[in-house]
């Protein structure tokens, strides 16, 4: 890890703004993400939650006309710097999407393709890591006999767990979840949720969710986003216990008890 001068340790951002062409999606967000804990990002659709998430691994670079300004740091590295090595950054910051998106390859290759890119060539080591991460997501027993079969044969919930395993294999420091359960049935959703709760041991977690009860069950901290004239803003960031009992901002209180948003 290279420590560039000026970027604080820990994980956080200051005066972060995201703009798509003329549309300001997110304005002036400053936040510190607690290490090895779960931060739930909540708020209505269109308030910049997903944009916020996608700046941490610079996935925003994939979109035309997307401009990100401000400061963002990840354990001493300046995330928004022009010189940042995107490939290395994205190995340090895993991301799980709303819809499970395993590659249409075998289960094993899904995990080993990104892993091999990091320079690991030894088959035993690759297989060892594959087994470990599949164990971690509770998928090993279900898949150990069919590792060479297509990942698309798995159920939605299994696919999502495979995607988590695939991200874990790279040993990320930060794991981003973008509504990881919203495309799953309630049972699979519960399994993935429990899994995310356990993953705190391994990485810092930021999860975007529309499911307030889910946030209540797993979050240690809550970041509440809201919009003003279509511009997304962070209106409150505090410990989960406080957010769900006595939030400072009336918008948060109204959103959480379901009377707004």
């Amino acid at each position, binding site marked *: 890890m290279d420590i560039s001068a000026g970027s604080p340790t820990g994980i956080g951002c200051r005066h972060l703004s995201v703009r798509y062409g003329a549309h300001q999606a997110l304005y002036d967000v400053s936040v510190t993400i607690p290490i090895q804990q779960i931060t739930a990002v909540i708020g209505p659709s269109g308030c910049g939650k997903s944009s916020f998430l996608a700046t941490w691994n610079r*996935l925003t670079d*994939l979109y035309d006309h997307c401009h990100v300004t401000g400061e963002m740091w990840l354990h001493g590295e300046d995330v928004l710097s022009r010189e940042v090595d*995107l490939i290395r950054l994205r190995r340090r910051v895993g991301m799980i*999407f709303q819809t499970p*998106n395993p590659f249409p390859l075998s289960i094993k290759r899904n995990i080993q393709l990104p892993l091999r*890119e990091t320079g690991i060539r030894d088959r035993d080591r690759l297989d060892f890591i594959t087994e470990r991460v599949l164990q971690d997501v509770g998928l090993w027993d279900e898949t150990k006999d069919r590792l060479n079969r297509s990942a698309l044969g798995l159920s939605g919930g299994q696919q999502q767990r495979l*995607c988590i395993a695939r991200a874990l294999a*790279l040993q990320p420091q930060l794991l981003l979840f973008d509504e990881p359960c919203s495309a799953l049935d309630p049972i699979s959703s519960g399994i993935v949720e429990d899994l995310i709760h356990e993953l705190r041991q391994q990485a810092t977690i930021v999860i975007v969710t529309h499911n307030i009860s889910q946030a209540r069950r797993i979050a240690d901290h809550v970041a509440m986003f809201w919009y003003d004239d279509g511009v997304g803003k962070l209106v409150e960031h505090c410990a989960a216990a406080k957010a769900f009992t006595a939030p400072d901002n009336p918008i948060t209180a109204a959103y959480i008890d379901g009377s707004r948003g």
Partner: protein
Amino acid sequence: MTKTEKSVVLDAPARRSARPWPDHGLAAISWLVAVAIVGLFCWIVGDLIWHGWPLIDWTFLTTSPRLGGREGGILPVIVSTLLILGIALMVAVPLGGSTAILLAEFTRRSGWYGRLVGRSLDVMAAVPSIVFGLFGNALFCQMLGMGYSILAGGLTLALMVLPILIRTMESSIRLVPTNYRQAAAALGLSRTRTVLSVLLPQALPGLLVGLVLGIGRVLAETAALLFTSGYVMRMPGSLLDSGRALSIHIYDLSMHVPGGESKAYATALVLLVILLVVNAIAIFIADRWQRRLTAKMI
């Protein structure tokens, strides 16, 4: 309306009678057109088989033409055709494939560079083949000193199929769902690795369509070859010899050789069979390749 009533309405006989009349009309027209197209195809193929098949035997396929093609076989013509096809594909597929990847993945569609290349290709696709023939003659035969040769013909056809090859390949790469690109980027895969291991295997069926169209165009081309590979009927000794393609042989027999018509039929049938066989081989290879890429190979 209760549930039972609804299901009665949706029963097949009831639905048929409830269908408004324009639907019947449209369905009938579609059927007629489809039948007409299939009929036309069967007519052409049937005609070829009817007239051509009796003349095709082992000697026809393995000997040289005599008396301007009225007698003998077409072996040198088949060999020249396959050589021209081979050269055209060997040049056009790598060139076209990499251009397609460049356009689909490494340039912005709205950017000036992507637009420039795209427009050029569209114009090139619309250029009549005879113009390509004259261009190929000027560039390959004269400027580069290849003379009338199989090499010059193959290279000219390579240029000619590039637009269709690139455009179909480009769109099939673009059609791979964005979430695979996102997933790959989020996992720290390089662009090259993403293209090779994720996008190309997915795009393969579409790439194949481009290839099949390209092969068809090369095998069917006549005008451009008149000026580049020429119409010498001898067995080519090297790629720098002139060689007559099947399409030119058909043209020559039917237009310039009195009494050559029946051999023209037989040659056309052979051309059709070669087209089918080459396409089948292409599909077979691509299928094997896709299986290797998606499962075992790592």
